[in-house]
């Protein structure tokens, strides 16, 4: 392992003018699939982390933030989730959080890139353990294609795709939201990555996502979390729902009774996460008026 006297750094451009650097101990893996280039590094600060085409997807030290927020928020609102579809999510972190809920009967994971799953299984066993749950079925398929064939089938859809410009671009489109709507039961919820609103060049993606989702779902709210390796460290999630409101239909007591161990999510934080900074609120309202 390289000592700290060696200047070995992973760098990611967050904008043309802002760069994030992570000191690297070791480059553990590099491979190119049909969809992306995948690399795994070991670092002193974040532990092991995985990148896709040079962008950090998750790291050992922070994935709990993201996986907890995208799972527990909708799970604490919907009163009876039996069938869940995870689009992307090949690392298993989302499935792991879902596996804590006994009432869930089916966890379908639709991940186009088998290599991604294989790499995660090898290097991130703490995430990939989620894939071993007996309720999990993995479909190596394009998310849009999978959804096209589903109608009135799921209580919860989690869109785990992160990059609206890469091979997952199809998962940030109106056709995706529309097909999700169709795939959900009448009281279904869809949560998705809403990107980071801070830098100018990310703002338009964020706006476009909201514009499309608002048109597709009657209830559409945005919530936030702090994720250090994301651009500006600030990340949004979308809560799109056919019936349930994320605050009014939120049942904290019921969730507390489950005694799920978390590091980020709490029932206090649940409500707070929907309280957004003014500039974000303004941006969302502008798009809702469109």
């Amino acid at each position, binding site marked *: 392992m390289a000592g700290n006297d060696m200047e070995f750094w992973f760098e990611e451009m967050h904008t043309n003018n802002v760069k994030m650097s992570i000191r690297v101990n070791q480059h553990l893996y590099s491979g190119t699939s049909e969809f992306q280039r995948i690399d795994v590094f070991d670092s002193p600060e974040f532990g092991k982390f995985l990148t896709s085409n040079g962008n950090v997807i998750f790291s050992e030290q922070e994935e709990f933030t993201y996986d907890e927020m995208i799972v527990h928020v909708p799970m604490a609102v919907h009163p009876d989730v039996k069938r869940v579809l995870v689009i992307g999510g090949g690392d298993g972190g989302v499935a792991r959080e879902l596996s804590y809920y006994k009432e869930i009967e089916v966890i379908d994971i639709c991940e186009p890139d088998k290599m991604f799953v294989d790499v995660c299984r090898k290097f991130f066993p703490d995430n990939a353990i989620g894939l071993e749950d007996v309720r999990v079925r993995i479909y190596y398929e394009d998310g*849009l*294609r999978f959804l*096209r064939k589903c109608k009135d089938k799921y209580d919860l859809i989690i869109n785990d795709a992160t990059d609206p410009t890469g091979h997952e*671009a*199809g998962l940030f*489109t*109106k*056709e995706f939201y*529309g097909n999700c709507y169709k795939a959900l039961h009448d009281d279904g919820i869809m949560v998705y990555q809403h990107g980071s609103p801070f830098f100018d060049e990310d703002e338009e993606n964020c706006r476009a996502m909201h514009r499309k989702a608002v048109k597709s779902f009657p209830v559409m709210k945005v919530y936030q979390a702090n994720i250090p390796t994301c651009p500006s460290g600030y990340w949004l999630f979308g809560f799109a729902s056919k019936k349930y409101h994320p605050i009014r239909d939120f049942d904290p007591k019921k969730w507390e009774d489950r005694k799920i161990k978390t590091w980020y999510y709490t029932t206090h934080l649940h409500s707070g996460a929907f309280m957004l900074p003014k500039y974000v609120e303004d941006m969302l309202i502008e798009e809702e008026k469109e």
Partner: protein
Amino acid sequence: MDLERQKKAPLYRALQEFRRQRVVPFDVPGHKRGRGNKELVDFLGLQCVEIDVNSMKALDNLCHPVSVIKEAEELAADAFGAKHAFMMVGGTTSAVQSMVLTACKRGEKIIMPRNVHKSAINALILCGAIPVYIDPKVDTKLGIPLGMETADVKKAIEENPDAKAIMINNPSYYGICSDLKAIVDLAHKNNMLALVDEAHGTHLYFGEGLPLNAMAAGADMAAVSMHKSGGSLTQSSMLLIGEGINEGYVSNIVNLTQTTSASYLLLGSLDISRRNLALKGKQSFAKVCELADYAREEINEIEGFYAFGAELINKSSVYDFDVTKLVINTRGIGLTGIEVYDLLREEYDIQMEFGDLSNVLAYISIGDRLQEIERLAGALNDIARLYSKPTGDFFCAEYVTPIVKATPQEAFYAETEKLPIDQTIGRICAESVMCYPPGIPILAPGEMITKDILDYINLAKEKGCSMQGPESEDISELYVLK
């Protein structure tokens, strides 16, 4: 095709060589490798702007090629199986016009399908030839024009033994092919030239299992839109000639209207694309066919859409079908193709090639990936769910036999007057009246207006067809020759 030789790209190489040489320019263009136009460099990039240069010894001259362009054209001829290939920088329009101008002069006849491209009609305006139209047949359910039936071509030849040439679309915009070989043979047996508009057919020369291409069918000339399925830059094209055609004469014709400052960006792109097609075309188009087939399968599972394919083949008006063309009939969801085209663009950020009253066309090419096909299928699925309407009656106009009284050239230059449409019977039309569907003219400049034609225009309008062309949008008036 000599595959070893096809690895060369002489013009591309000469441009790369030129880039390294750092020659001091005291010639045009005046931007001088971009130095005089910073915004242009910022916009297009230095890589692009610094090879925007003029003809010079090292880079040859398109008007009279002697070195690298000549060699690039020879390689193209070899790749396409032609006697000679002309690199064209004025679009396939200029290639089509060069074919017509080569084949016929003022007062001579040329046989062509009624749904021929505008560029061919415009060539007739330039040269003064007389068109003899053939009914391309129509699929009234799908609302599209088909191909010429060989028997109709034979009849037209018998009725016009003095015609100089026959023009054939291979394939049409919708992927429909006529019996090219039979028509070429018929033309030759009657001392006529066979000219083939292959604006949508570059891939036919390189893919496997696709319809026959013009040069393989023994045609005399073909206009091949390299920039469509061939992958070169927009506006670049190729004109091919067969054994019976004089290269020097065609060169004179091309130079009548082609620029003397041909763009090296376009020419370079033709050379690179030709090499790609020759070396990798087979695999590339196998993938295109696979994508198009997959898209058809997926789209046909969505209720209300019909993406048609090889099942249309009937060995007459649809002699063959180009499976790379993805045409989707939208009538089953109660929307016009134009409405679906607009929805895809405005709501789903998907740009289609075109939409007509009953179909939308997606152009599938060497640049497509499965993920984009999934987006298209996903969007169509969503459109069917959100925007479907009850299906109404569908009427598709039929073929109206034109009576050509003046050549397109005479009609173009004639004195005209505007009359209420019901007073135009017996007059010669100065405008063109296109009827959609199926997108075939009912009247073209120089044609006699009859009571039957006016009755038909009224009927088609009443049934919901869209009439385009005349200045008066509701077709209440028409320009006629004085």
